[in-house]
């Protein structure tokens, strides 16, 4: 790993300032960035830790929904979101492993936008709003393909606000080695309709399965998707699954998520 200066500001303002220096990069829980730096695939000159900023921590229910500070570790979301948004809490409880969940954060996950990460599916299916130091960005605008987001230079995610659905569930099918999602489906039912977001499956990263949403908005039951087919075009093919297999899983997991939703 190349060396760097490590700074740990205690306010968003100080973090933004630190990030304005040349070669500065934000560090949240570091569960992805640190291994990447070990491989020398990232070499920041300054690493700005966001884990010491109190205003970026915590889970609270407000008028717009459930707000989660960007630097809140998965384990805290799993515990504290359970009574407000159980499907989201359950998703957080299934990311990585316990030690990863004690460090990894929702903001870090969304900024990285790994195509197999769990959180993006919840954010997209919930129509959540990503809050930065500069603006609020709708989930549908946030994700711009794998490892690509609307985040701009010098901008940091400070929190995410989730409208709480009537019913929801996330079902993840593990990639057997990494235990990221080989495919994961988050289904959320709102008064306005059903949203279905899929992670792990597409070369474009997380996406909404619109045929599934249409069918389920009419009839929120697993059987509603039985007659649909998911195209394998654009799906990821790798050692762990063919595009056809992933396309198949989208349907199976959607059905299971609907059956599990409460």
């Amino acid at each position, binding site marked *: 790993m190349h060396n760097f200066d490590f700074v740990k500001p205690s306010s968003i303002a100080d973090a933004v300032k630190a990030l304005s220096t040349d070669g500065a990069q934000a560090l949240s829980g570091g569960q992805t960035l640190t291994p990447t730096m070990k*491989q020398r695939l990232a070499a920041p000159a300054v690493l700005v830790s966001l884990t010491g900023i109190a205003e970026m921590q915590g889970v609270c229910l407000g008028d717009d929904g459930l707000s989660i500070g960007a630097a809140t570790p998965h384990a805290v979301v799993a515990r504290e979101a359970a009574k407000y948004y159980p499907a989201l809490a359950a998703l957080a409880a299934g990311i990585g492993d316990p030690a990863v969940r004690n460090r990894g954060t929702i903001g870090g996950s969304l900024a990285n936008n790994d195509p197999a990460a769990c959180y993006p599916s919840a954010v997209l299916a919930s129509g959540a709003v990503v809050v930065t130091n500069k603006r609020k960005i709708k989930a549908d605008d946030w994700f711009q393909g794998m490892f690509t987001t609307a985040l701009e230079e010098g901008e940091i995610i400070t929190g995410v606000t989730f409208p709480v659905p009537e019913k929801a569930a996330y079902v993840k099918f593990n990639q057997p080695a990494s235990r990221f999602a080989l495919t994961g489906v988050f289904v959320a039912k709102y008064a306005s309709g059903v949203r279905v977001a899929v992670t792990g499956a597409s070369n474009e990263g997380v996406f909404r399965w619109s045929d599934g949403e249409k069918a389920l908005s009419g009839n929120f039951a697993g059987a509603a998707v039985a007659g649909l087919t998911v195209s394998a075009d654009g799906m990821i093919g790798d050692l762990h699954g063919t595009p056809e297999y992933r396309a198949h899983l989208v349907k*199976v997991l959607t059905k299971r998520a609907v059956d599990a939703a409460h």
Partner: protein
Amino acid sequence: MPKDTGIGASSKRREDVRFLSGLGNYTDDVVIAGQSYAIFVRSTVAHGRIVKVATEAAAAMPGVLAVFTGEDFAAVGGNPAGWLINSRDGTPMKEPKRPVLAHGKVRHVGDAYAAVVAETLQQAKDAAQVISDESEIEELPAIIDMAKALADTTNRVHDEIPDNQCYDWGWIEDNRAAVEAAFKAAPHVTTLELVNNRLVPNAMEPRASIGEYFPGTGDYKLTTTSQNPHLTRLLVAAFVLGIPENKLTVVAPDVGGGFGSKIYHYGEEALVLAAAKKLKRPVKWVAERSESFLSDAHGRDHVTKIELACDKEGNFLAFRTETMANVGAYLSNFATVTPTFLHGTLMAGPYKVPHVYVNVKTVFTNTAPVDAYRGAGRPEATYSLERVIDKMCRELNLDPFEVRRKNFLTTDMFPYTTPVGLVYDTGNYQATLDKAVELGDVAGFEARRAASAAKGKLRGLGLSTWIEACGIAPSHLVGILGARVGLYDAATVRVNATGNISVMVGAHSHGQGHETVFAQVVAEQLGVPESSIEIVHGDTSKIPFGMGSYGSRSLAVCGSAMTKAVDKIIAKGKKIAAHMLEAAEGDITFADGKFSVAGTDKAKTFGEIAFSAYVPHNYPLETLEPGLEETAFYDPANFTYPAGAYLCEVEVDAETGKVEVCSFTCADDFGNVMNPMIVEGQVHGGVGQGIGQALLENTTYDENGQLLTGSYMDYAMPRADDVPFYTVDASCVTPCTHNPLGVKGCGEAGAIGSPPAVINAVIDALQRGGHRHVTHIDMPVSPSRVWSAMNNA
């Protein structure tokens, strides 16, 4: 009442206290004053001609002490193959030089062609990066696929080997015609093509080595992650660096697992020694996991066609196999014996089959070397046999349990000479199968299947009845078969003046628990407390000699040497006692730690005899040397033949193809058991690895020779939630007839017997679930593969 000490007791492991307290002493934990750090520059291409190794800029970087390239080792020896195999036509195998650092060409991704030694690890890494960036390697077409490699006479892994073939081996060649005739006349032939998937051993401790040189005496010391320090010393001294054997000490301290991968001598060990001499400083190297994936010897990697000839009732008439075995880019030390004598000789299984012929073509490719991994050849044999038998049963609508029973060798047939050259000394295969059927509740399977079906899951039951040859090995026999070393072992029992005992053993424990079990054995034999015995291993300066631990040999071979040494101690003790008790030597008996005059109450304790040996005031000095220390070497008369029956039940999720192992039952015959707790633990670990091979683990190179499964992100290691509790039993005992403890070995069993049981269960589940077209799926049976098999009618 189970024993609480000595042979047969489940003594708790004494080594655990240090491991549980963070006080283990693994190679990376060793810090030597003044140590410097080595980093290897590894090829990023699978095959290439080295045009220029750019060392100049790196050598001038801060903290850099030395840079080495293949040129520096061009004049020293290569790391040899331990076994000479001849082809069917009598010609010897092709044996290219395996250099310390690649010279001329790089032959696999991860092949080290330069090394940097620097004051700090980061400085070494920085300099290695510069060498990697600035060196010129002309990329050549990668040779990855074995069939293509054999057919390709233009592209060569080694320029001097035109068809990339190491040897074309037939076993037994003289039987070939008879086997062909048996197939021609057979009422039924079942054929199966299968892949025994390539695995990365993945001992949790990555390899590490520290070289030291002592200019005052000219001595060298290598601290390294080895399963057999004496063998490493021999290879470094006699073959590679030419250091006199008596000037080199090799120490393998606590070693975090081996599974075969730490048997071999690797170039990194030679490099740190050579660098230490040049720099007159200790040089330390510790592999990162990504390096381990690229440079540790891998395991398995066979492509096999097996045929079974039988009558309509399922009586076996003949087996015939054709196998391509990958050895990778260079011959690792056991690479040539693993697919041959550790594989072909097991191809009769525990069965009374009259005819067997095995053909193995071993192939060089631009991949990491492949060598013995837990089981080594025997899992490949067992997998082929047990899969083809299962397929035959389905074709002829026969019960797989009954077919195995009717083909088993029976207890009246031992000793039994197999058609592939082994002599099984003893066994009772019906007994272990009966025990497995009982413990695995085969009678209740149908009810469990129905319960699974009610949940929408397909349930299947798989059986494998396995045998192996271990306790490696009788030197006279392996010498005839091409071994370049003897495979005996040695031990010294030193009774100290105060009565406690040090036992120096050639076996090396890297998880097996020798420090506990060997002490149990000696305690029983000498009638002294276990706590008074210390087992010393892993240091060539302390132990007499040893061939190390692999092939489930520690107790059968080294334990026998230790027992012989104990016998000598007792014999000498009797002489001393006879003098002290003024009796004839022939009247002295030894039991429960006491030397007694038969028929009298005159006796001396073991401690009194030991004291007298070191304070010989009343001692037969004219006829007997003082001291009480004995060394014995033991060369086994035969292999040992553990065997057993394994049952696996799985549930398959028909929608996703995901396989869950619901239960796994093992009934084994390991001969006499010294510590049941440890034996069970060995089986658990082997089965865990076998389930890993069957369901999860795969090593994949792409067509350019890039390793696609080079980290735990893509190489699926079994985790705690991938496996169930196992049911294991070792109560069926037919003691080995030719070693003093009557032991057979248990280290590899689990990894040998389990993969076919899992796959047979998966196929059974799919068949019962109506997927009648699925007769085989190659390992690992990942969800994607199972789903594809179900849906590609």
